[in-house]
């Protein structure tokens, strides 16, 4: 069919498109490789989204400062910044928009539903989609060739968490026999809680109850009451930052005594929590994404981020590492061509230096080498207590009673 485009329209159209994309770089340097960062930088989880974006943009700067993609003649990376506004349709709209701008790969989206839909949309164009944060295992079970998740899903986090808890319990003479699981009511919390419930018996602990709560929750007094009446040995939490912090504080204020707090992907377990509430957080343990404390690069990055006035939360280094993964794949593919890039990613053995991971190996899009760390808040700081090769301190379990 004939496309009726007037010359004026054509000129206007291409000018508009040109202003939307990177202005042509004068000189011999090739056009930059565009990396789409899609995160919820507004709305309820704006803080987390902004942290992800911070990690991503820092990494892109670093890659460029180190000379860009050398196998592509020093081509630089360029960040395309998208706000998903925590909504599926907006995330997908950003995918479409960035595709128009010639994006080579996407990194996103913090929330699993947005990640699921956005990566689905990107699969139409065969564009690689790196999931930096997003725990749901639905993300990688769809048979999509363009989805890559470097971090562990909640299945692995639960398995590793159970194993570590089992070891801790054994070392303490098996004193923990019951647990209560408090979780947020979305897919991340529900999925994690159900898995935990099924696996706890294997280490001799019974999940007495699963308590679901909304985001946000106005107060945890009743949950605290419930927990006190159930008197579990372990309290396990899987939720987002504010609820994690509020629940921990409520339980502390109500002097609820347990052998240990052991959270799987506890959203609020970070430096801010530990430094602002040292008494509340003392001895709490969390199985989560953590950087490798023995990596000099990680420690240096931490200092840089903190010097810049931000906190070194997991969103920062996960997105940072994903950019590095992408850069490594671009190096090996020596091209931003989608097929080549997908192949390079699928066969990637990228060394995730900042993370306590084994060697990268993607199976069905999930990195098999990914592992969470087990951390404990000790003396106002966060120490890694497992896996052993990355540990920076010894665990304290059971925790001393609250007076």
């Amino acid at each position, binding site marked *: 069919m004939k496309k009726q485009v007037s010359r004026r329209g054509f000129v206007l159209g291409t000018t508009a498109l040109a202003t939307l994309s990177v202005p042509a770089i004068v000189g011999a340097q090739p056009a930059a490789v565009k990396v789409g960062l899609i995160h919820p930088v507004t709305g309820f989880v704006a803080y987390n989204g902004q942290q992800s974006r911070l990690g991503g943009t820092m990494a892109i700067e670093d890659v460029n400062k180190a000379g860009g993609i050398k196998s592509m003649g020093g081509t630089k990376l360029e960040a395309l910044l998208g706000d998903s506004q925590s909504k599926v349709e907006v995330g997908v709209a950003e995918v479409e928009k960035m595709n128009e701008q010639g994006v080579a790969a996407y990194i996103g989206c913090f929330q699993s539903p947005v990640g699921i839909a956005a990566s689905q949309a990107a699969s139409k164009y065969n564009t690689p989609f790196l999931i930096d944060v997003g725990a749901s295992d639905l993300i990688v079970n769809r048979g999509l060739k363009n989805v890559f998740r470097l971090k562990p899903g909640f299945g692995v986090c639960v398995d590793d968490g159970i194993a570590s808890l089992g070891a801790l319990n054994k070392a303490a003479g098996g004193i923990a026999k019951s647990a209560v699981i408090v979780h947020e009511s979305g897919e991340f919390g529900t999925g994690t809680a159900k898995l935990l419930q099924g696996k706890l018996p294997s280490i001799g602990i019974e999940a007495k109850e699963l308590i679901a709560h909304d985001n*946000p929750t106005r107060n945890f007094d009743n949950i605290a009451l419930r927990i006190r009446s159930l008197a579990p040995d372990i309290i396990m939490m899987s939720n987002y930052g504010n609820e994690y*912090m509020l629940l921990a504080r409520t339980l502390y204020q109500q002097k609820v005594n347990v052998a240990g707090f052991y959270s799987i992907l506890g959203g609020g377990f970070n430096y801010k929590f530990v430094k*602002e509430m040292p008494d509340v957080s003392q001895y709490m343990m969390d199985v989560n994404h953590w950087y490798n404390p023995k990596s000099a690069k990680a420690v240096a990055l931490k200092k840089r981020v903190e010097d810049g006035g931000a*906190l070194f939360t997991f969103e920062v280094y996960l997105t940072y590492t994903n950019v590095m993964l992408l850069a490594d794949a671009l190096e090996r593919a020596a091209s931003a061509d989608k097929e080549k890039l997908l192949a390079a990613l699928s066969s990637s053995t990228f060394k995730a230096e900042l993370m306590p991971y084994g060697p990268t190996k993607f199976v069905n899009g999930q990195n098999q080498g990914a592992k969470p760390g087990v951390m404990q808040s000790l003396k106002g700081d966060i120490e890694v207590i497992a896996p052993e090769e990355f540990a920076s301190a010894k665990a304290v379990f059971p925790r001393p009673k609250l007076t």
Partner: protein
Amino acid sequence: MLDPGIILAGVLNGFLAGGIYVLVAVGLTLIYGVLHIINFAHGSLLMLAMYAVFYLWRLVGIDPYVALPLVIAGAFVFGFVLYRLLIGRLSHGRDENILLITLGLSIVIDNAALLFFGGDTQTIDVPYAGSFVELGAAFLPLPKIISFGASLLLCAVLGLYIAKSDTGKAIRAVAKERQGARLVGIDVDNIFAVSYGIGIACLGAAACLLMPTYYVTPSSGHAFVLVAFTIVVLGGMGSFVGAAIGGFIIGITEALGGLLLGEQLGQIGISLIFIVILLLKPTGLFGSKA
């Protein structure tokens, strides 16, 4: 499975929570009763008040309870001016439009807060936060008890003010019969602004009472406002007494629902009680025909 001691403790918890809800609801119902507007910006304004309390504590070192008179006064002025300059001017007196304008305002306020304050969660640490009072199976945190008491006191004061003072009488007149009030010489526009200001002043008080045990982020006002709307309608829109009683009903329902059904499913209790009461009494417990 649940012994009566726990149930009682839950009821007490609900009472304490209800105290705060009442304060937020009373402001909302006053605004509705007088101005006939559903103030969608209520949550955002609560959030602003909470940030004010936070920064007063962080930068000047004022304890949130001590800051009460300051924040209440400031919130009143802010609400008064906001009405005078924006809401009153832009809505042409049309109810549906005010709804949209307050909605737009809430979007602006939420995102301006995000821009200026950043997205991180901020908390206040008061030295007495760890103290509590033991009553049977209930561990009632001291800040919550203080908040409850202060809230009741403030509501009583406000109630007296509206019942006895001249301005209060004017407010009631305007709420009952706008045109008639104008005809007897009451400056209706001024009363509108004063009422809005008082509504926001209630939020200022609620903010002071919330911060010791909660937290603030640019999105944290909304959680309380949704429940405040429920309470206002439950109690009868425009009814002060209704908002007060409704607040406690909801607080206790929330607690019992949470205990019996689990926290998440328990929230359904609030919506269900709301539906049931409305179906039985379509203008709310103490409301009059719209």
